[in-house]
């Protein structure tokens, strides 16, 4: 059948054999293709964690930008330093003081392109291929991607309603030590966690810090949602009580605007020095323009009042989602009740595979993020992350209602095929 035709194969990528090992997983994915549909307005997207930037006073933002360009344009449009603008770093320290961090010095702050870049730099500085990063399970999906890009081994520690379990953490670190594994970081989102919506309780914060201190593991406290508390009381940051043991990551993406890409790391002095050098090799200098926009905005606008507006808006949306879940979800489904932030974590009964269910949800015009993406080890298949930050309450109710119908349908499908196992295993 094979002919004598000489035909050369074309792979459409002549560099295919040249990519680094760490790029092997960077391929087209079905789930991403489905999310492309979810971005359409016909779909109620409970998937993305996009802040409701339409609630920002855009005229005030415009005035800030205009004033900046007219008065300090030559500085704003010039290179800056890799560490970031000193004026902004001082204001960042004021922001962190709202979460109990009273001893932060601008010299120990590194401004980054969102806190995502801070995480990337930190991983670059600490993690060699094969080193272990311990995280909550589930954890922030893009943190997993960052750790994977540096070829870290990711080990999850389970959470309950009070957050990361200290007992399980101690046990995991003990096991890893016995294996001879090099555990470098504990990555945690302790406040209004993404994706869990869970907050680590104060006693547990102390326990977790103590366990990591003893094990010589640096704690990375990623805190983009800390100021978005629905009780009005900011949660005290872990860094406030452990300046030498924690690198704190902060962001203006949720409290101002993600399009500015301004975040930061607050680190112990020796770590800061390395982060600055890493930043220099990565990007030479941060965008002076967006840094100064943020700095001027904080200096001239009632920013804290704006954060209150966001909090109130997100609280209303959280309530709409929790009410709708109670109305729409079948018996056996469970979900978290966040006191702040953007997310509710829903776990479904009956062995439902939320990844397999996603196309059906999209067809029903509602989208969510399947739970498995928030684990590096394939767990989370029956869970999903729902975001309440972007759609207004009536859309949330509508979307959760649709989702409830999809879940019931999925349970029906599972039941249809579960019967097969019963028969197959009949003696």
């Amino acid at each position, binding site marked *: *059948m*094979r*002919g*004598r*035709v000489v*035909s*050369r*194969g*074309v*792979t*459409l*990528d002549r*560099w*295919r054999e040249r990519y680094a090992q760490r790029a092997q997983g960077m*391929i*087209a*994915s*079905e789930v*991403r*293709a*489905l999310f*492309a*549909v979810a971005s*359409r*307005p*016909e*779909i109620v997207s409970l998937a993305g964690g996009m802040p409701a930037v339409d609630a920002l006073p855009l005229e005030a933002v415009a005035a800030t930008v205009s004033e900046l360009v007219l008065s300090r344009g030559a500085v704003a449009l010039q290179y800056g330093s890799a560490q970031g603008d000193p004026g902004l770093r001082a204001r960042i320290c004021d922001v962190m003081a709202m979460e109990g961090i009273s001893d932060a010095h601008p010299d120990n702050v590194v401004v980054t392109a969102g806190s995502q870049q801070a995480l990337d730099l930190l991983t670059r500085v600490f993690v060699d291929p094969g080193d272990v990063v311990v995280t909550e399970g589930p954890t922030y999906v893009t943190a997993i991607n960052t750790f994977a890009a540096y070829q870290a081994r990711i080990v999850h520690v389970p959470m309950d309603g009070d957050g990361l379990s200290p007992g399980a953490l101690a046990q995991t670190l003990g096991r890893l030590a016995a294996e001879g594994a090099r555990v470098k970081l504990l990555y945690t989102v302790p406040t209004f966690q993404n994706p869990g919506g869970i907050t680590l309780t104060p006693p547990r914060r102390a326990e977790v810090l103590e366990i990591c201190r003893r094990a010589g593991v640096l704690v990375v406290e990623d805190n983009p949602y800390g100021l978005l508390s629905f009780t009005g009381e900011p949660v005290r940051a872990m860094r406030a009580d452990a300046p030498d043991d924690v690198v704190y990551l902060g962001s203006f993406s949720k409290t101002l605007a993600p399009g500015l890409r301004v975040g930061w790391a607050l680190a112990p002095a020796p770590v800061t020095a390395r982060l600055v050098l890493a930043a220099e090799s990565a990007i030479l200098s941060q965008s002076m323009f967006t840094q100064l926009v943020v700095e001027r905005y904080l200096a001239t606008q009632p920013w804290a009042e704006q954060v209150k507006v966001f909090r109130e808006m997100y609280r209303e949306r959280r309530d709409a989602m929790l009410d709708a879940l109670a109305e729409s979800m079948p018996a056996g489904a469970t979900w978290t009740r966040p006191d702040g932030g953007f997310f509710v974590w829903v776990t479904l009964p009956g062995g439902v*595979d939320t990844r*397999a*269910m*996603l*196309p*059906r949800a*999209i067809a029903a015009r509602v989208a969510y993020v399947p739970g498995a993406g928030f684990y590096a080890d394939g767990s989370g298949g029956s869970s999903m992350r729902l975001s309440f930050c972007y759609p207004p309450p009536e859309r949330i109710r509508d979307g959760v209602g649709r989702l409830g119908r999809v879940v019931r349908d999925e349970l*029906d*499908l*599972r039941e*249809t*095929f579960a*019967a*097969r*196992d*019963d*028969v*197959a295993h009949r003696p």
Partner: protein
Amino acid sequence: MTDLGRVLILAGGLSPEREVSLRSGGRLRDALTRIGVEAELADVDAATLPALAADPPDVVFPVLHGTSGEDGTIREVLDLYDLPYVGAAPPACRVAFDKATAKAAVAAAGVATPAAVTLPREAFHDLGAAALIERIVARLGLPVVVKPRAGGSAFGVSRVDDASGLAEALMACFGYHDSALIERAVSGVEITIGVVDTGDGPVALPAVEIEPAGGVYDYAARYTAGATAFFTPARLDDAVLCAAAETAITAHRVLGLRDLSRTDLIVDAAGTAQFLEVNVAPGLTGTSTWPMGLHAAGLDLAVICRDLAARARTRRGTPHG
């Protein structure tokens, strides 16, 4: 600009193949623009019909993939607006998009196609999945390929080597369609053949042989540049290639297709090209095989698509069958 007038490329929509379709549409727009055709790309949404009514294009080139793009819906709508378009008419699309019906139609014309069973989700629910799965495996043997009865880009498609995996594969398939086509997996050389008709009858383009690095031509293998090796012409005997080309033409004719199509085939150990499915709006992305076939034939994507659009334009007001 040419005298073709304004070509409206419809892409996107709400199918899972939205992203692929937008890439196909973008590539087509760029190609047509390059040779001086006035080409516009539009996503299909609630604004589409008012725009078609207010400012009708001279001809439409639908590159919508998946349901509503390939099942005849969008073309039925274009007919309602008396707008000429490139590609098959709705009745032919309906038959071609339904893999089970298309297989039956080409089989009736003497074309080989792997044995298959098509069952809706309700059948498993109402009659009992265990008994049905047992009979399916007894009839088709293993391995089998489970596919949504309609749809593209390998969404919801799985190969099952062991009976215990069939239930999972069916559930994944039912995520995309309420009916499953369970087909005997044929081992052989996977090829795809484009067909184009610019006025002198359908012509088969050189066969493109597909060799996915991971062994399975799934979504990632289709749309990650480099994940699949394509051989054009396929590394097969001339006689086999001729017969396969005939099969693609037969499918195009039997199904009543028009202008362009792409037939996916597997050439078994005996050298027989077995029909798997046909596409009425083949992908035009950088990793799609229909443009590769054109290229191998020494044809230019832009010129051929312009000619197809020009031919479609002459059909304005002509009733379709």
